[in-house]
């Protein structure tokens, strides 16, 4: 074979005006000495000399009686086939889609046959988002949602046209829809090209490439802290303390993140769970238990009334954001306090002195948009039963493949010393054994991005595959 290594392909999507042409021109003028081919849409206007620019009219081939999962771009098959016919191999291919293009058939084109798989490597799908105008389309446009959902890299462009708060809100929303994509903020599509080209985004090779924060499931609480408490009658204090002690710190990384209080601002939901130790296993068990309690009926507690550890959801009734609640501890030990809204300062006083939490964690919790496009991440240690995994994925794709835009994962399969790396688009699916686990813990990480995903069913289905 004269062409051993596959040619990397970058797909640029985004609405008209999002900045695709600007980015393309930037790539072409900055990538001197590299031979790139650009396949641009029929309205394309890339104008850089000495580069191979091919215009293409979108032509959808429905390989299997109109099944969307089996739709591919016939024009791309043809053009890519012609681009293989060169003595000197191309360094890369850029595909610019029209503003309304569905990225699905573009991505599926690279699964069409073995020739496509061996000659080309879909490096990443890069979606440009017009930070100013996307809010006008995002609710009404399935195309925008798909373009965000399919992306490996999302560039929020034209950030100079929006306020920091608007940008953070958009970023948060986009991240919720597609937690696996790398997000970048730009003006004039000015981005270091290492974030766009050869990023290896499509083929997930390391579990660490997934954003661990994203992988946290959606909890009904926003903050939890662990306190080591002696037996006795203590005090749970909500609101700023009179004597200026530091409470727990809610470190919100998103600058300008607008945290509006949800529900009644003079109510705060609290669950206090005993926990054996601060080992991750015990913490996780307490967290799971708290999730159930949060789903329970609330017990309304007026200031001055006492709260107890265990399976009770306390709804603290605050007085202008303040309240003191006696907390009686029978058994000394570690206690986890789960707080429904992480914005409320919370203190536990033992003999009038604040106890510092020995451990704490923030849980992102969204109240703003319930986009139908979302991502579900699963991260579970342990080995999987190969056959059950195969059956589960097979059945899942058969029944839900139309709604699943993308999936990626790194899995530990019982009996194999190597990581199983997989990725898919709709029903098309590619899995191969990658490098050995070696000393690193055998942990399964996978993410689904799509429409109307059932987080609970996906989690349960996956856990049932554990050996």
């Amino acid at each position, binding site marked *: 074979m004269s062409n051993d290594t596959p040619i990397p392909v970058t797909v640029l999507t985004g609405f008209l005006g999002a900045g695709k042409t600007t980015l393309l021109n930037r790539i072409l003028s900055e990538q001197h000495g590299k031979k790139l081919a650009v396949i641009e849409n029929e309205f394309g206007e890339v104008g850089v000399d000495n580069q191979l620019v091919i215009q293409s009219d979108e032509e959808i081939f429905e390989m299997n009686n109109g099944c969307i999962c089996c739709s591919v771009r016939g024009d791309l098959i043809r053009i890519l086939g012609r681009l293989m016919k060169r003595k000197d191999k191309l360094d890369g291919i850029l595909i610019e889609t029209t503003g309304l293009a569905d990225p699905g058939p573009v991505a599926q084109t690279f699964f069409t046959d*073995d020739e496509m798989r061996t000659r080309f490597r879909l490096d990443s799908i890069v979606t440009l988002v017009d930070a100013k105008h996307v809010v006008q389309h995002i609710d009404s446009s399935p195309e925008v949602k798909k373009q965000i959902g399919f992306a490996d890299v999302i560039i929020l462009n034209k950030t100079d046209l929006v306020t920091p708060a608007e940008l953070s809100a958009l970023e948060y929303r986009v991240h919720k829809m597609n937690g696996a994509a790398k997000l970048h903020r730009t003006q004039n599509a000015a981005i270091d090209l290492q974030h766009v080209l050869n990023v290896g985004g499509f083929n997930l090779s390391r579990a660490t490439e997934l954003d661990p924060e994203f992988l946290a499931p959606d909890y009904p609480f926003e903050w939890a802290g662990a306190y080591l408490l002696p037996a006795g009658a203590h005090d749970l204090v909500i609101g700023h303390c009179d004597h200026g002690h530091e409470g727990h710190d809610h470190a919100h990384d998103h600058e300008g993140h607008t945290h509006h209080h949800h529900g009644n601002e003079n109510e705060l939901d609290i669950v206090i769970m005993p926990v054996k130790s601060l080992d991750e296993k015990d913490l996780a068990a307490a967290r799971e238990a708290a999730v159930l309690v949060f789903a329970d009926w609330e017990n309304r507690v007026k200031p001055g009334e006492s709260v107890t550890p265990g399976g009770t959801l306390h709804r603290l009734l605050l007085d202008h954001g303040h309240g003191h609640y006696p907390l009686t501890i029978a058994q000394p030990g570690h206690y986890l306090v789960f707080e429904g809204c992480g914005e409320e300062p919370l203190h536990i006083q033992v003999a009038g002195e604040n106890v510092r939490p020995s451990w704490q964690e923030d849980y992102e919790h969204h109240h703003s948009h319930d986009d139908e496009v979302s991502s579900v991440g699963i991260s579970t240690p342990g080995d999987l039963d190969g056959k059950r995994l195969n059956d589960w994925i097979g059945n899942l794709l058969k029944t839900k493949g139309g709604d699943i835009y993308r999936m990626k994962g790194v899995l530990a399969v019982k009996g194999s010393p190597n990581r199983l790396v997989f990725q898919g688009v709709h029903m098309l699916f590619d899995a191969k054994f990658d490098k050995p686990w070696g000393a690193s813990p055998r942990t399964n990480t996978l993410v689904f991005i799509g429409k109307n995903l059932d987080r609970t069913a996906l989690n349960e289905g996956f856990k049932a595959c554990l050996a």
Partner: protein
Amino acid sequence: MNLAKHWAATLDDYVIDLGWSSDGSLLATASAAGPVSLFAADDGAKTATLPGHDDGTNCLTWHPSQPLLATGGQDGKVKFWDAPSAQHTASAELGGAWVEHLAWRSAGSTAQPSQSLLAAAAGRNLAVFNPDGSTRHAFPPAPKTISALAWQPAGGALAAAYFGGVCLWDADDFVVQKEFAYANGIHALVWSPDNRWLVSGNQDPSVHLWLPEQNDEFHMSGYESKVKELSFDRDSHWLATGGGRDACLWDCTGKGPEGREPTMLPHEAKVCAVAFQHTHGLLATASQDGTLHLWSPERKQPLRATVKMPAPATKLAWSPDDRLLAVGSEKGIVYVLKCEG
């Protein structure tokens, strides 16, 4: 039997197409980058370099009886060239898309010059041209991009394939004779020399055979990968196909290949070209590892000769007298091999 190097030449890029003039005196070769070179069959002397097409040439084809060459390219044009004078004689436009498929109506049907027609496809557009470059007829656009063209050997019909089917156009009044639905991509079309069979090589991967006269059809699947390579032998007996590590031969005599075991001619790598001789029985097959085999399918030990080339073959073309085999390669080298013994 031996395959000996007769001569070789180097082009500036991937050899995207090549073909012998009707009298066998010239070999035309097109590089993917654009230039078209003409070589003397006897000694490999380059007799002309034609500029070909801006942005690249895709295909070429010789007139069945005159030294007239037609080429198609990424500039959306069909160009006509007079070989002896190396002059560009005419250009025709086909709507802007790449011209990817050209086919002259075959010699048997062109006793009268007025019967001489070049079919060309670019995108969904299909047209037939006179040798002077004027348009004889422009067909209504196909439902999808045209992916293969083949004249019926008797010259009565032109088959044009696209994703979704094959249309048979009447060669005289340009109306639809027949339409065959096929719900997948088609990469290649070939007719059997006796006009009985029309065969497509498909994406799914399979070959599909139609008997247009009998309104009958057969489907042969089980290939490793898409089938882009098709060739019929002179007797319409064997259909050679690629689509995997073996060249696969179907016996098309009588009722056809259904229910018959194909003959498998093994290669070490994926087969990338197959070509039967015009009037003799040898089959040349090439694979991605640069190997070229010659076979006599009817023999018990069918393998007759093997040549190993440094780069995979892109195209194979037997000279009209079947003495010379021209091989284009991915690295731009053109080999002309002589069949001896």
